[in-house]
């Protein structure tokens, strides 16, 4: 079991305390053979990015439910840029209006999965789009 693994940081930033969804996603990524670092809730953008640097993550996954996605996402993108994480995939999931999806993509999010997304689509997207590690 020593082949390269995809490493994913999953987290929730801000004061949103709904962690059911992020736990479901973390579990299904684990079942898809990925190494998932779950940071828990109430994180800061700086903390998430520092963890991504230390863990050499391929993917950062953020989960939102309570409407803070347009507030925290630009901060995350900004911190990623500052830390030079331009080869790390940023994926956002959760519950938000459909019209916010293009807004978040414009901000720099690579892909958005709204409630009702199929698990296969999330796994496939990550497997196809992560950078290769030599």
């Amino acid at each position, binding site marked *: *079991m020593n082949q390269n693994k995809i490493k994913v940081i999953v987290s929730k930033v801000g004061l949103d305390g709904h962690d059911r969804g992020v736990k479901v996603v973390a579990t299904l990524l684990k079942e898809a053979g990925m190494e998932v670092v779950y940071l828990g809730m109430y994180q800061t953008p700086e903390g998430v990015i520092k963890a991504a640097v230390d863990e050499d993550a391929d993917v950062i996954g953020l989960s939102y439910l309570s409407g803070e996605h347009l507030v925290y996402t630009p901060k995350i993108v900004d911190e990623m840029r500052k830390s030079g994480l331009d*080869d790390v995939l940023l994926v956002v999931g959760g519950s938000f209006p459909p019209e916010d999806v293009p807004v978040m993509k414009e901000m720099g999010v690579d892909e958005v999965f709204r409630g009702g997304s199929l698990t296969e689509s999330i796994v496939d997207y990550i497997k196809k789009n992560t950078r290769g590690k030599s």
Partner: protein
Amino acid sequence: MAKKTPDNPDEMAQKLLAGDRRAAARMITLIENQSEKSSQFMKLVYPNTGKSMVIGLTGSGGSGKSSLINHLIRQYRDQGKRVGVVAVDPSSPFSGGALLGDRIRFQAHSMDDGVYIRSMGSRGYLGGLARSTNDVVRIMEAMGNDVVIVETLGAGQDEVDIIHVAQTCVLVLTPNMGDDIQAMKAGIMEIADIIVLNKADLDGAISCLHSLEATIQLGISRKEGSWTPPLIPTVASAAKIEDLQGINELVKAINDHQEYLHQSHAIDEVQTKRIEQELGLVFKDEVQKFIFKGLKGTGKKQQYIKAIFDGRTDPYSVVEEVLKTFLKEGSKVKETISSKQQI
């Protein structure tokens, strides 16, 4: 997305020694993946290791290892020390994936540049650690951490590899895990330099403390000047910091043990054991890699497997045959080594 360009080992090692966490992070990934460059990296890193205090925490899943480490980090940071943490969690035997959840307990340090935390999946390696945990500890030493804390995965009775990595091993227990016979068994109970009874505010803690105390007394070495593991009750998780218990005592016990190791020169023995274990591991890996590389493309591996399946031979005879062939080829190497033996 563009594939990351291959990294130059010398340049990366230089950055690592200067404390660059991205270089450290990338190097750890390459070593975890056992990439071709691993040994090159380790050769560069190795001379800069062996000086940090390495503490190991082991114990069952949920006993409070991560929560205790959270407080240890705080204490060492208050002393102005740089801290590295390697936290191992189990990998799935089915998917190979892992849920690495130890970082949740370290949230208080998520913004501190003096703390470097790395989570690792065990990737099928037994013994409570991952194959490359020791290398990762060395990388953390080389990047300038004064203290490196290693957390094993949830360990039961026999996951004792931590003794080959850490100088001071802390075993974390909780009340009501079994009677004194459980505590008398060989294995994990024997490797502890310090025994912590965490969740000491739970019912049953006092009788548990008494029976552990009795068990420790049974196991005390009669040799003069030898170390007796202290037993420390702790409460590592509380709403208010005043309600925590035993954290200062644990830090003191770790310091006492380190002092004992250095004064009795037992530290040399610990370091020698670590090197012995390391040498064995590296040797096994490299020989295996060497032989599999030699067999690659010849189709012989499949032939051997088929022959064993058909009952014409067995794994032991196959390995003997393969080793003979390789040792014959390797005899030239042997001559070269013996002619260099003057060094």
